[in-house]
């Protein structure tokens, strides 16, 4: 089985809001704050590794990432245990939206040829749009199972996936090839073992351009974007304190009245 993991390097979501600026339609982090692998994509890698480890030896995992900073994401997933990495790198990909990204990733998956399963995070932890996995499936015309809590190959051609619902779980089976997006309920991604980390640092990662993928520059990147950013703003948090007076009973009654008035109760 050949599994593809899609991984994205993002602005560190742990960065305190005070540590970045907004310039036009860009978020500029403070110096010294390095981008990180999107947590959901690390979980996607974990899901792929679990599928591989539960099966006879011979499966391969390829990690795909798009954009220059994706090289670090690929290294990290390789360190976790993936076999190969491909970086989709081209000036034409810059400033693309989910659609362009999915188009490029799907083209890469087609180019790889023998892919049985694509695993993505349920959403990237920066913009939280959750579109890319779905659009890859659409582009490949494969079935997709979203928000997985566990992924298990029941044969070479079938997958059993437990999905997270609002009020419980749902187990579905799907024929391969397919796309699966995973959620944090799957569990924490593994810590890389050092021998793998060192081997990953030495592995060469293929770089494919838009031309390699047979994509026209107008379809991807800023040129192919279907999403238009209207406004970007830093969230502001305001707090106002109002002291209630009177006896405990009066305070409680006043509190209830205020909470009702504000629609909290």
């Amino acid at each position, binding site marked *: 089985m050949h599994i593809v993991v899609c991984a994205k390097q993002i602005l*560190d979501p*742990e960065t*305190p*809001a*005070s*540590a970045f600026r907004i310039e036009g339609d860009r978020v500029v982090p*403070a*110096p*010294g*704050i*390095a981008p*990180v*692998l999107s947590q959901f994509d690390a979980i996607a890698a974990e899901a792929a590794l679990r599928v591989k480890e539960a099966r006879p030896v011979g499966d391969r995992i390829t990690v795909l990432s798009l954009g220059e900073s994706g090289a670090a994401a690929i290294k990290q997933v390789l360190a976790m245990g993936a076999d190969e990495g491909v970086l989709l790198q081209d000036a034409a990909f810059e400033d693309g939206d989910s659609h362009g990204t999915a188009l490029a990733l799907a083209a890469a998956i087609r180019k790889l040829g023998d892919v049985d399963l694509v695993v993505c995070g349920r959403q990237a932890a920066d913009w939280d749009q959750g579109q890319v996995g779905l659009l890859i499936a659409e582009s490949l015309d494969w079935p997709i199972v979203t928000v997985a809590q566990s992924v298990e190959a029941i044969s070479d051609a079938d997958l059993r996936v437990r999905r997270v619902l609002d009020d419980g779980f749902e187990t579905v089976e799907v024929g391969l090839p397919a796309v699966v997006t995973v959620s944090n309920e799957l569990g*924490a991604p*593994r*810590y*890389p*073992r*050092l*021998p793998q*980390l*060192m081997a990953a640092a030495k592995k060469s990662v293929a770089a494919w351009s838009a031309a390699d993928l047979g994509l026209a520059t107008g379809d991807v990147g800023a040129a192919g974007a279907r999403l238009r950013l209207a406004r970007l703003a830093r969230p502001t948090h305001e707090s106002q304190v109002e002291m209630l007076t009177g006896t405990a009973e009066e305070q409680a009654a006043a509190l209830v009245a205020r909470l009702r008035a504000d629609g909290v109760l």
Partner: protein
Amino acid sequence: MNDRPTAAPRPPRVLGAWWGAAVGVSGLGLVSAFEASARGATREVFFNVEAPWSVYACLAALLGLLTYGLVRHAALWRLGRPAPEVWRDLPSRLRNALRLGLGQQRLGRDRYAGVMHACISSSIVVLTLVTIQVAIEADTPFHPLHGAYYLFFSFYGDLFGLVGLVGVSMAVWRRYFIEQPPRVRWDERIEDHLIIAGLGLVLLTGFLLESARIEVTELSQHPDWAPWSFVGYALARFVRVFAFEPHQLLAFHGAIWWVHLALAFSWLGLIVFTKLDHLLFAPVNAFLLRTDSPGRLALIDFENRPDDEAPFGVGHIQDFTWKQLFELDACVRCGRCTSVCPANIAGQPLSPMAIIQDLKSHLASTGPAIAEHRHEVGGIGRDAVNVQMVGGVIEDESLWACRTCGACMQECPVLIEHVPTIVDMRRFLVMDEARIPATAQAALENLESRGHPWRGTTLERTTWMQGLEDVPMFDGTQEYLYWVGCAGSLVERNLPVTRAVFRLLRESGASFGVLGQEETCSGDPARRLGNEYLYQALAQQLVATFAAKGVQRVITNCPHCFNTFKNEYPQFEGRFEVLHHTEFLERALRDGSLRAVHAVEEAVTYHDSCYLGRMNGQYEAPRAIIEMVPGANLVEMQRNLSRGLCCGAGGGNMWLEERGGQRVNHVRSAEAIATGASQVISNCPFCIQMFEDGTTAVQAAGAERMRPFDVAELLERSVFGAPVAE
């Protein structure tokens, strides 16, 4: 409650004093022996003994046995990796072998045990010398045992026999009658009883033998010589009361000679089979003791690895160095390490003694198979045995419970270094197996991607500067770099400490600057948690930053950064003068550049952080500052100075969940509260966080909460009069 020490703590002198007294008494004996008219005084060696050669037969057997034992042990030690460092710095090593090994300096930390052990060991040494002189007298052309020296010889022989009996009695009293301290019973084995009983019997039969001889010979023939063997003489006088026939006494003497001989050699034979081997191994282990700082962990050379298959940490017994294997054999199961271990005190699953003993028996049981496998198949033989060491013989949770506080190493009388051994096994867990508790893994991931160990901090490295004017950035022109550290800048509670140090530095007129956003973690948490690879990446990056900035002198907020900069960065050629803020502030107070003018009327207690105190020996500077604050009254805790108890956060336990028992910071907070002081003063951002939590949890309801403060916060109040405006 201890009174405040007036001077820097010194190693205990109990044992030195003991030898002084012993030599003094012997000297008096020598002088009086020469004063006495003793012309011709001597005795027949092997009096009434039919087969004196049997002594040599026993000796030969003993030597054979000892050789056999040593060869067997050495075969196990040789399984370990090389330890080239033990041949460096020989003068310090010889000094350690003399002071800590033969001089038994560490034993004095438990006074009773120190006196007991000094009695027993000095008795064994002197009586062995006595026996050797008898052999020389009997079987060489030299005859030392004549005249005044014979009388003196008789005197000190008896003196040290008696001293030995005093020691044995103290041991018996402690082990069987008061059963204190409990540690003597933690891992008690039959051999422990044999050793005490055997030695007691050897000494007693020696005296019986002597008294029978004196009764039959000297008491009648040379009554003026006899009293020099004062114990034997007194016994002989007592025996005389019963008016035995000489032939009865001779028969008794002959019989007891054999018993004494058999007991003495059997007892010495225990060296091969029991913990009595510490008699040989402890002084050697003192020689092998590291001569650099205990705060420094060994460097792994990732570039030049001995073999590519080698694990990075120690997961198999043969991946320890031979020095680490050797020290397993030096352990006498005394339990001192475990009795001072913070995790153990709190009831958590760690006993340093059990770790050493478990590794020792693992080595003994698997070593021969490994050696055979190496002989037949070659290689390291990691597959030779099917017993999992880390995760099996030694449980993961024991390794994680260690605070690396060094209390065990400080106490060990045979100089075992537990902490590096524990960290080596952690390295295996983290780097080779990636088997890490989730919270520690999160801390390591944060260190790697964010350069600090905290997840979800809302602060920045410059937040503490808000409200302070003109915080100078370090650019190489200033004398000192003030190193704030992650805890000092990213943890809310520690910001006032950072501001206090900053204000005091500025007030003192020091030339200094800070790095602000350019600070990254020193790497200490990664190293203590076992990720040496990550540590080296962080440390090398910082060494390069310091070199680029021209940093010569550093003042740190945190004793952990302090220890790493001072003791560990030289491993990467990062050499600069490193001061903990308390060291700088004490100096500034002494030279008058800071003046503590406002009174702070508080009873305070002081908590020694492990990495400023035990690991770096700095107990005095913080205490001196507290003393110079008018009004502050220092009340010491029971466990203080080199016996100080860890706050619980050390060794990466800031980021580990505590398992089993109490929380260490609750135990320590209770100890601080028991002093009755209103504040607990420390020098470490982690200690302060632990006390904030601990005092809240432990304090009796209704009582005013004891507040933890840094030394700098206390001094700030005294220098400026009020806390900095928030």
